[in-house]
């Protein structure tokens, strides 16, 4: 379907399970997707949907025990990361795949100067000497828009504000020019005005460097503005995946539809806000059938009994639902012959 040479990352049938006192938690249960070079993929879902575990699995950062990548492939440039020896993975982490996390305060070492933390990256991965690494650190801070970078490079993390710390994290992540940047809720802890700054920065850096990005978020607004493709996750499964514009215009899954409708639209006057009833499922005790069935407004008997099929609606559009075709048609979607 897609050109192999354009694919940077291919995840096939990935399953990551956790053994807990509560039973086996299938946090990620058989998901597959591809990421092309230079593209941004958004992964949306509520807490517990498996979006963060997916990305920790890509980097093999799942704590084992209790977690375990049970099966699947993570092909990065055609090479399966899951089969590599751990020191080879360490060379990929930070160098070719970098990650930024939600809370910049807990991801920076409070006892180390910013300069030291940035230099560590390039000394380790690029073999920089001290002076070279120091200059590189300053240049990276300038790239991410820290004013007076030369004066501030020797500060400690607590001397920076939340937005500035997130910029430092981005500087650190990009300092070895990675091919893939994974950003896990990079702006959730920030104010909207700072969020806008950081998102613009990620967009600009992506244009300049051609880095591919996986953006994990619960905010559909952020996804709309930042991504080319979107994956919607629920209970460890991909519920829907499509090009961003198509997903927002003609969703083919009742869960996606519900999510889109439950965000208040500031530009429109509306009465009662649509709400998805009930709570996200306890992944340790899933019943047979569709995991969303108890909350779904168009649920039928078959949904409670049989696990739904992953239906292809369009060239790049899939939905996990017994009635995917109907839902898609109701949203006004039509499959184009490709």
């Amino acid at each position, binding site marked *: 379907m897609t050109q192999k040479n354009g694919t940077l990352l291919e995840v096939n049938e990935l399953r990551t399970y956790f053994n807990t006192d509560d039973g086996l938690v299938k946090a990620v249960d058989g998901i597959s997707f591809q990421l092309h070079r230079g593209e941004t993929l958004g992964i949306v879902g*509520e807490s517990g949907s498996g979006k963060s575990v997916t990305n920790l699995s890509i980097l093999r950062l799942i704590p084992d025990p209790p977690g375990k990548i049970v099966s699947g492939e993570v092909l990065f440039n055609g090479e399966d990361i899951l089969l590599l020896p751990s020191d080879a993975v360490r060379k990929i982490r930070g160098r070719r795949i970098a990650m930024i996390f939600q809370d910049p305060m807990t991801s920076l070492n409070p006892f180390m100067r910013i300069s030291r933390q940035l230099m560590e990256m390039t000394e380790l991965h690029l073999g920089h000497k001290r002076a070279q690494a120091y200059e590189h650190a300053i240049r990276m801070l300038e790239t991410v828009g820290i004013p007076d970078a030369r004066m501030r490079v020797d500060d400690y993390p607590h001397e920076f504000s939340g937005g500035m710390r997130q910029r430092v994290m981005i500087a650190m992540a990009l300092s070895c020019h990675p091919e893939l940047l994974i950003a896990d809720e990079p702006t959730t802890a920030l104010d909207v005005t700072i969020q806008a700054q950081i998102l613009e920065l990620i967009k600009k850096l992506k244009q300049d460097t051609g880095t591919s990005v996986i953006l994990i978020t619960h905010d559909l607004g952020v996804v*709309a503005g930042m991504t080319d493709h979107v994956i919607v996750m629920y209970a460890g499964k991909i519920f829907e995946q499509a090009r961003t514009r198509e997903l927002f215009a003609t969703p083919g899954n009742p869960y996606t539809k519900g999510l889109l409708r439950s965000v*208040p639209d*500031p530009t429109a006057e509306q009465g009662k806000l649509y*709400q998805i009833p009930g709570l996200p499922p306890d992944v340790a005790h899933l019943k047979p059938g569709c995991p969303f069935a108890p909350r779904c407004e168009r649920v039928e008997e078959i949904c409670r009994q049989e696990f739904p099929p992953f239906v292809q609606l369009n060239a790049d559009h899939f939905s996990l639902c017994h009635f995917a075709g109907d839902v898609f048609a109701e949203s006004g979607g039509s499959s184009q012959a490709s």
Partner: protein
Amino acid sequence: MNATNTETNGSSLISIRDLKVHFDMGGGGVFDKLLGAGSTRRVVKAVDGVSLEILKGETLGLVGESGCGKSTLGRAVLRLIEPTSGQIFYRDKDLSKLNSRDLREQRRNLQMIFQDPYASLNPRMTIGQIVGEPLDTFGLARGKDGERRVQELLETVGLSKRFIKRYPHEFSGGQRQRIGIARALAVDPDFIVADEPISALDVSIQAQIMNLLERLRREKNLTYLFISHDLRAVRHVSDRVAVMYLGKLVEVADAKTIYDEPLMPYTRALISAVPVPDPAVEASRQRIVLEGDVPSPINPPSGCRFHTRCPYAIDKCKEVVPELVEIKPNHFAACIRISPQQPDIETVAPNDAPGLRAL
């Protein structure tokens, strides 16, 4: 004209007059002088002269970035934080003057819902005890009566009455927020401060809690001060919105107006920063990205506190502290570069400050 003078009619439930909350951070002692840190005490002016009317039966949304003082203001209104100066009138009683016994009496009518549903419920108390405690405190219901009342309250907020013997850790974030709401409702209040009640919740649960708060307002005739940094949520639940920046109100208007025709450069920037869940809109819209962070409230900028980040700032803005002025009917803004005659900052001549002439 001042915001306080316009609506002193009978419909106002809470009336805040020139409220200030300053936190003394110390400093200025002998040691500081020796170390060259200067001889002035460091004072955080978290709320610095706020006047606001909250009308009976309305939801007033209070928005601003973190550190702007919105939570401090919400708490000071209930005197959970002692105000430094100013007055808070509730049904003609000045809450800021009450002694602790009279204040506690009034708390029956004034309740609060907190942001973090994980931290605001005592983990060692059952749901029945948590929701029933206010009934006990105010001697409203005891024994079997109390239990029945707690069951009613749980059902009102959409929880099963079987939960009465369970502990907070057995519940999800959204359910805990419902428990917090039930506790606030126990004493039958008429005013509730909701401090970021949905920020910690998942998207699908946020909608549930917003709808619940709205239903309760209608059924129980409540008045809310809804504090949030989420402008989409505030726009949805509020009748009027107040925008706060570094301890001061900068714009007050009804929710639709403030969204469709914001006057203040700061409000415009805030609104344009909110991502819209529509790729077509996102691709085409012009976003005003503010430079830098919110300045420290210890040493706020002189004059208009927003001048360091404002794309329209002129030299005068560094000198004059702008007053909240009624620019259009019921639409207040604090900016010297606009006036009732020239409300659109885009059309004001460069370096002109029509707001100064009106004073």
